[in-house]
């Protein structure tokens, strides 16, 4: 039976709560698609506790919000982008993300992933943060479970 800890990864970016969005972008950016697998930023407080996750989506939404207020002038747009980049990353933390437990089953994970739009679920073992679960990993596991051995049914696929 698949458990959450089989789908989780510990390879993500950690960052302190005092950092700006610009720093988060610098850390999360990578030019090659192959290295863009877990672009999720785990924000930590001064004690090393996990405050939450920030995804590229959150950064872009914040910039878009700033831009929406800026109008069409390029100067005001630049100011808006700079303001957006200076936003502390802690302010962008996604609040509606359910937390996964290390021994959650695939069914539980499916249920939790459907509760928000997040691309990653933080995973805890008790009180200890141990990694993140990409929803694509849950998606893949569901595909394996439901589609395995049934490709012949799918009409558009070549044999």
């Amino acid at each position, binding site marked *: 039976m698949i458990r959450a800890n089989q789908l989780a990864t510990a390879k993500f*970016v950690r960052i302190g709560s005092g950092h700006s969005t610009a720093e988060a972008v610098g850390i999360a950016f990578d030019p090659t698609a192959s290295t863009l697998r877990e672009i999720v930023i785990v924000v930590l407080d001064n004690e090393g506790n996990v405050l939450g996750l920030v995804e590229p989506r959150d950064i872009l*939404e914040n910039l878009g919000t700033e831009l929406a207020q800026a109008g069409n002038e390029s100067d005001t747009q630049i100011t808006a982008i700079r303001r957006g980049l200076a936003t502390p990353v802690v302010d962008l933390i996604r609040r509606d993300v359910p937390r996964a437990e290390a021994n959650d089953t695939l069914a539980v994970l499916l249920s939790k992933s459907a509760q928000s739009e997040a691309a990653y679920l933080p995973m805890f073992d008790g009180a200890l943060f141990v990694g993140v679960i990409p929803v694509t990993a849950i998606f893949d596991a569901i595909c394996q479970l439901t589609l395995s051995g049934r490709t012949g049914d799918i009409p558009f696929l070549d044999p």
Partner: protein
Amino acid sequence: MTQSTEAADPERATSASPLRRVSNYIREDLRPDAIAGLTVAVMGVPQGMAYALIAGLPPIYGLYTSIIPTIIAAVFGSSRHLVTGPTNAMCMIILSLTASLQNRYGVNLIEIVLALTFLTGLFQLVFGIFKLGGIVKYVSNSVIVGFTAGAGILIAANQIKSLIGVSIPESQGGHFLVTIWATLTRFHQANPYAFLLGALTILLLIAFRRYAPKVPGSLIVLVALSFVAGLAGWSEPGRGDSHVKIVRDIQEITPSFDIFSVPQMFLRPNLDLIRELIGGALALAILGLVESTSISRAIASATGQRLDFNREFAAQGIAKMVSSFCHCFVSSGSFTRSAANHQAGARTRAAAVFSAVYTAIVLVAFGPFANYIPLSCLAGIIMVTAVTMIQKDRLSMTWKSGRNSQIVVGGTLAATLLMPLETAVFVGVLLSIVILLRVTSKPDLTQLVQHSEYGFEEVPFNRAAPEPVAIINLEGDLHFAAAEDLDYELLQALKPETRVVVLRMKRLRAVGSSAMAMLDHFHALLNARGIHLVVCGIEEEMSKVLTGSGLRKLIGEQNIFYADNRIFQSTELALARAMGIVEMQRSTNETESRDSLRETLVLTTAADLMQKRCLRFGEGHQVREAMWLISQFQKRMNTAHPQSVFLQSREGKLTAELDTPAILKHLAKGLTTTDAAGLSEDALARSIEPRLFDDIRKIARPADITVKFDSPLSEVLWRASQNRFRSMPVSDAHGRLCGAFDEVAMLRGLTKLLHADQAKHSAPAAPIKVNPIQVPLT
């Protein structure tokens, strides 16, 4: 070399019954041990008597010291081959320590030596019990080489008088140069017969070593020349100045073994004397342990035996303490006899016991004959062994090992020749420590420069091109001596362009209060210049020191990056932070030109971000087909980022969009976490199955937010915030799908903005290269 049975079969050695072990020993190890013990005894008897003379004691005490401590150290020790007994260097220190005390305190010399022996043993026992074996680490190879060579010179110089048969009054003894001078001025009083015997001893020993090294030359020479002296009547009393002094003239060796006596230090303790002996006893204890561990380690490296040094130390201590009740002086592990023991095939510690037993037999059976050994012959033996102490090869190698080794070996040698011997050892150790502090008083300083292809490049300090961020790599020891003036040295890396200094302290050790004071001052110096400080590579120990010293608060948690398993991870994060600071500083200056940013905003368009490869699908398919398509696409593109499927009409127009979270939400419809907790995977598959056949139009959302090819980045970013999907479709003027880009591509565009801003503001210096920070891969 045959391995010991203990070594060959350790399990048998520990698990077999005592009777079985004795039986095994008798069958396999007794004979080789007995032979090796005999070899050691043949070598050790003359050495023991001669070394006693070095210590200024009658030869009989050398024989006692070859028996009692040898047995005790073998019984309690761990090395199978170490032979404990009198050694020349220790004897020289005994002489140096005790020579002047006899007259000063009015105590018999042998009683002083016995007290010294007990105290030395006590120190060694304490070292063993409290596992302080590490103390010998502080006696470096250079100290040992210098001290041994110096002791060899002293021993040889001290024996010239005995070699030529000249008597020097005690009042004219003392420093070795004085002794040599006194000997030379009495050269005309030399006894030609004693000189002849001494010279013959030296020549014959050299000949034996060269042409018959396995023959016990010392013993043969002593016996032969004693006969010669006896037959010629040179050692007969009443010959006046031509009388050749023999062992009997100092103290007669009697064939008795009545040696137990309680040292006077217990019966009538003289506290002043004991206080004076303590420093010397400590030096003897340390040097003795160095000698013992050196030889036992050297032999163990050949046999593969694992040694317990703390047990060895305790054994050496017990041996000295007990033997001080048996007229024995300070003993130690003997290089020559231990090596002979090993080469003769000794298998267990019993071999050393055998050698002691043989020596005891010699003492009882042949003791009276030993009385006729000429002292000049013993002096010849001592001189030959003293010369071998000056190990030319080791001296040469140490001398060539650099200036620091030269200072230590030269300093120790000079101290040995000019100062009391017990002090010389400490002088050598002190010199080693001072040199060590001097070498480590300057941590290695380099600078790191980020390279576009291979991460970070290390360049010599103060050679990096001027940039807003200076990354300084600090390595080595940062103790109190090293911290001095380091802050001002670090300032040399600052250039007019410098806005942030990143201090990488990954391999910094021994950080104390001086280092924290230096860091505090450096932080203040930077502050005064309007420069920020970011530190990275912070290990746990450093983190604690930063907290304790209050520097964590001063520097700010956001400017501190902790060491990670991945190389340069924290440096990359620190650099990103530094670039952020530079960015923020710039953003405060609104009057600066924005052309570059504006150009990027306008010139970077959706076409730059778009990929033609995206998932296009007809409208009439089932959810399971979309799932299959997405899962295959994710695998092929090697991405974990949620993907979208774009639905097209028959005319190729974009109509709707469907992504991974939307599908998951559809599959999980009605499934609560509580219900899910009780579901098996089969049950889950069954509950999902009906939904797999649903029409994708039921869950797809209209694709009403798109961008055009030429939409500028500012519009892209704005529209992305409006779009609920994770991919942004790009359509042409007719609404047909041309491609798409996801959030990652948009981030890439954003970084381009940062590049443009930094490039503009770093003029006229070279543009800062903000290389992508690698996200760890699965």
